[in-house]
């Protein structure tokens, strides 16, 4: 799928721009750079989906973490949210952003594990409330004038580096550790997992907290990259993240999926955005095609799966 799309843009690229789409290191970087924050969320939501759940709150948690982190990363000046908390060492805003994300995820996990409401509802509530909190935090005002040490976190290829590190870490955790074994087991059959001695409640809370932490990291990276915290950040990122996971072969009914697949799904989204711009595709048509490609990717994936099993 990825190869097909890339080849298509390569051919179109030659006919429209007269140069190669693919053989340009800078463009390859930009392709991944623009989706690396969605990629972080996708790694989180993949794990949640593996347990048979869903996380709709990640985009809003990006906004909330971005606001909290940015408000603690300001330089002194008339636009400081907390005039007494300016020019702080960079670890404080980063830690606050991560903690905000993890806390939101922890609340999601506890809601789901303790009240047994569907993850769709619990995280829908968090999606609405976290966005509301992000707006309430500064009454909708953007938070800017961030310190240079903070904005440096989001500069250049660093978001890509974070994405790759996170992917590697969770690839290993899911494949080779008990953390992964439990995650897949709960998704495949929660009842069986419980009987075989897995503390399902505790593990679910952990997985949702991890997803929240990754959203928090996404919020830190977004605000650092834009040198500003805004309540409208991360709008509908959760859907792109879920799309990336599903394009990458993660099954929405749980138990099946891989981080490597999610990485490929994320890159497909990035390739499409860059490719459309590269060939100067009409902006009015881009989203129509994007939707079709997302569905098509999953159809092809399912079809190939059936072939293998038959």
């Amino acid at each position, binding site marked *: 799928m990825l190869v097909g799309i890339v080849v298509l843009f390569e051919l179109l690229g030659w006919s429209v721009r007269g140069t190669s789409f693919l053989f340009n290191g800078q463009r390859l970087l930009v392709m991944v750079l623009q989706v690396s924050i969605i990629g972080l969320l996708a790694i989180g939501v993949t794990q949640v989906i593996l347990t048979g759940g869903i996380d709709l709150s990640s985009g809003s948690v990006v906004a909330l973490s971005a606001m909290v982190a940015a408000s603690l990363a300001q330089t002194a000046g008339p636009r400081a949210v907390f005039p007494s908390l300016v020019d702080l060492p960079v670890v404080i805003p980063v830690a606050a952003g991560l903690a905000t994300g993890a806390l939101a995820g922890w609340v999601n996990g506890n809601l789901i594990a303790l009240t047994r409401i569907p993850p769709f509802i619990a995280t829908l509530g968090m999606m*609405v409330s976290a966005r509301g909190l992000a707006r309430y935090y500064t009454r*909708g005002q953007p938070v800017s004038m961030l310190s240079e040490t903070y904005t440096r976190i989001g500069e250049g290829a660093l978001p890509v580096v974070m994405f790759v590190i996170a992917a590697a870490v969770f690839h290993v955790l899911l494949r080779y550790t008990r953390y992964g074994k439990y995650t897949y087991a709960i998704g495949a059959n929660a009842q069986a997992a419980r009987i075989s001695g897995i503390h399902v409640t505790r593990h679910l809370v952990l997985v949702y907290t991890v997803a929240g932490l990754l959203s928090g990291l996404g919020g830190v990276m977004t605000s650092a990259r*834009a040198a500003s915290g805004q309540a409208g950040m991360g709008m509908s990122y959760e859907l792109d993240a879920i799309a990336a996971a599903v394009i990458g072969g993660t099954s929405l009914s749980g138990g099946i999926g891989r981080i490597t697949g999610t990485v490929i799904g994320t890159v497909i989204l990035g390739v499409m*955005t860059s490719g459309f*711009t590269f060939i100067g595709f009409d*902006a009015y048509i881009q989203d129509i095609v994007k939707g079709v490609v997302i569905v098509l990717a999953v159809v092809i994936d399912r079809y190939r799966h059936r072939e293998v099993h038959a």
Partner: protein
Amino acid sequence: MREGGNVLRSVLKAASVSVLLASFMAGPGCGAGSPAEPVIGVAMAHFDDNWLTILRTAMADHASTLPGVALQFADAQGDVARQLSQIQNFVAQDAAAIIVNAADTTATPSMTKIAQEAGVPLVYVNRRPAETTLPKGVVFVGSDDLEAGTLEMEELARLMNHRGTVAVMVGELASNGAQLRTKAVEDIVAKYPGMKIVEKQVANFQRERGLDLMNNWLTAGAEIDAVAANNDEMAIGAIMAIQQAGIPAGKVLVGGVDATPDALAEVARGTLAVTVFQDARGQARGAVDAAVKLSRGEAVDSFVWIPFELVTRENYKAFLDR
């Protein structure tokens, strides 16, 4: 298979609950002002848009200086259906007047109809309604977006000596502002034979999207002499991409619209060549005053125009505290 059924069932359940939630959220929120005191309902398209936040705050500030005028705000979150029910709620609670910052300007005829049938005065602010003529009791207070695009592009053209290539960053496709500003930019470029639009893409009025778009253009090897963005946030994104690519400042001219505090800081640094001041306080005052007048039965012009103003390196200081 059984699990598939469960998932479907929970999605259906979830959908019905979310409809329920949405109908709660559609309410304008209660508790503001005592029921006896007539309020002016203000239906905003977005609470979290930077410029609209300035507008909203300015309306609240201006209303607080007027005796007997209380405002009640509602956030449509960009959803026109939600906004319509918010307007109906304002009508139902006997609002003295309603101020609407339309979530979708093509839906204004139905908003006008709701207000007219209930006999409640209606003031559209900032986003121009679709109707060419407005009935009595309905007015528009705002600025002409064609003027913003014209001011921005004329100044960029002058700085380019009327020669060179232009890339256009477009805001939300469905918004009137994006369409009219883009049209004005295209019209100005078409006027000068030495100038040409080489790129035109959407970045949804957002900084990160502008940054990504500019990165994509730069790596596509596009020869761009000037970027005309529909707003400042996208323009700032373009500036960040240009800096990160190591292109010397001033080589690519960047223009925006809104004159937000962040944009003025960029003008001061010499990275943003031009922006256009849209008078949020002027529009806010105009809208609240019009609503108060209409609610007292006084006459107001159908269209109240608040002019845009060009902001450059030479005059930006005058806008720092406006």
